[in-house]
């Protein structure tokens, strides 16, 4: 899927345009990154990398949906890169959830959120994109670079694990 057209260097993005795009997408990118990294500092670093990449690579999108999809795709890729790095290689399964930036208004919120965040990374991504961002299996496939049947399998297994953890099926 082609998301964008590349612009010439001389047509670099204007600051007001950058600000507009940042404001429109910052939460989407940050929340996706947080879902992956489980801590605010890394999620912010990743988010900054993603936007700087967008603002300096001279691309423009046909519409805001394509822009958002592209940003999420880059976010997922950058998250993967980060987790491939030495820093995380030995920490992957033991990264603690950064509770300091989370607030829960009910015990159920805490229970469900912790259950999701305790899922393996690949399951967290599809759960986040499917339930939070509202993407279809096909769209998630495009964003994550995983084929559709694999996404479906991951969703199925993620739901099953959540059910095992919480003791009952989660309603969407």
């Amino acid at each position, binding site marked *: 899927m082609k998301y964008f057209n590349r612009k010439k*260097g001389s047509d*670099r993005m204007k600051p007001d345009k950058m600000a507009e795009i*940042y404001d429109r997408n910052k939460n989407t990118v940050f929340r996706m990154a947080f879902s992956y990294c489980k801590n605010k500092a890394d999620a912010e670093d990743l988010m900054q990398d993603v936007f700087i990449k967008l603002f*300096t690579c001279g691309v423009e999108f046909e519409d805001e949906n394509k822009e958002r999809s592209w940003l999420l795709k880059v976010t997922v890729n950058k998250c993967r*890169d980060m987790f491939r790095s030495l820093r995380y290689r030995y920490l992957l399964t033991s990264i603690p959830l950064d509770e300091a930036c*989370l607030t*829960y208004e009910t015990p159920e919120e805490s229970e469900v959120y912790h259950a999701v965040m305790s899922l393996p990374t690949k399951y967290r991504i599809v759960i986040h994109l499917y339930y939070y961002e509202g993407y279809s299996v096909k769209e998630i496939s495009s964003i994550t670079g995983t084929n559709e049947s694999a996404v479906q399998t991951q969703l199925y297994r993620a739901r099953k694990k959540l059910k095992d953890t919480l003791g009952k099926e989660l309603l969407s």
Partner: protein
Amino acid sequence: MNMNDYKKVTDRLEPDERCRKEVLDMSKRENRIKQNTNDFEEKVSGVEVRRGNGALRFVGIAAAFALIAGGIGTTGVLLHKNSRNVSQLTEAGEEETVTEEITEEVTEEPTESEAGEDYDYEAIAREITDSYLERTNILVYGDVEYDANDTITFYTYDSSDAEWSEKYGGERTFCKVTDERFGSCQDIYDYYKELIANTIEFGGYSEPLITASDYKDGVTLDGAGVVSYLGGDASGFENGSKVDLYIPDPEDDSTVDYTAHGINGGVYIDYNGSLYVTPRAAQYDIGEHYTSEPVIVENSEDRIVVSRYINNNMRNEQYGTQKLFTLVLQNGEWKIQSIGTGMQPEYLSSIAIQCYLEDRAEYNDINIDCGDIMAPLEMLEYDEENKTSRVHAVLHDINGVDAIDVTADIDLGSFKVTSADITRLNEYDGTLKRPSVIWAEEHPDGKE
């Protein structure tokens, strides 16, 4: 209990407000640096880089000069164990060429006996960095002896693009190389490669690259394919003939005539069993030189990081660009594993001044192109450790007349002018405005 609980918690997550400013500031700076680099390259080279994915491997030689080739050269400097004095550089032709097979196990750890040896790190740093420069100038700039009377000539054009052919195509003359060390493109690559470690690293690739035996697969330490410089065997083209650079499908590498592009932009070509070089390096005194002595910034038993400033002959800079050479011990020899770029005091100072003047309407008549600030820039003080500089320059208005005398203190880490003493040498003329100022006035919505 349902998925809405996850959504509600996630909805409350937001990045800090400081991220916004950091993202926007950094993006603006990156864009400015990119724009300045492009502007500079265009001004210096006057040669267009050929289009098309495949052809991107070939950078016009003059454009390559402007890139301040982070290239790398080098040959085997054999720095033996126990040597207090650095051994002699091996002469190509005398020393057996080490042809390394590409294998899975190329990273060779130093043995205990090697790692514990006594090395003269300063001598190693000097010899290898000196050797690197020589080999870079040979590979990238064609700095070899040749016979100016023994030449072959081709005429390049693009049958699909008359404008390009008119502006950038034309005569490409090569002279026969008389340096006995080199009889082919492969020889140039082998000489260049001798000082490079089996695995090399550079930004942009997450895994180390294995240096290839064949020059056609070779890369320089900055990641460029050496085929940018080594055009290969052009014997199929008759001396004096026209060479078409047309690429039927720019997305398909197999449709690129690499030899044709090698003739157009390469530094060397093989022709009927002999090696030929473009004579531009000697004609225009193009190449690189050091502006500082080597300084060891890190060293352990099997790894040294050396800092040395390097400059392109085309730029009149006191410092130029700081190169950080990482040398590693490999089978008892020190080799270059990577070369990073550190400070660029003149360039970064110019960007800081450019940004400073751009934001002040009273200097709307000043020519603030980065190259036009760099050209007269005088470095009064430079503190590498604290990343600060004090510079002086007389800048022109857009008519080329001396207009302001600037002395500025600069924080090179943030590209910002921390204090400036500016004296006008002529009166501000409101009718003289930079094109970018006029454009911004006419397009207020797009004003930066």
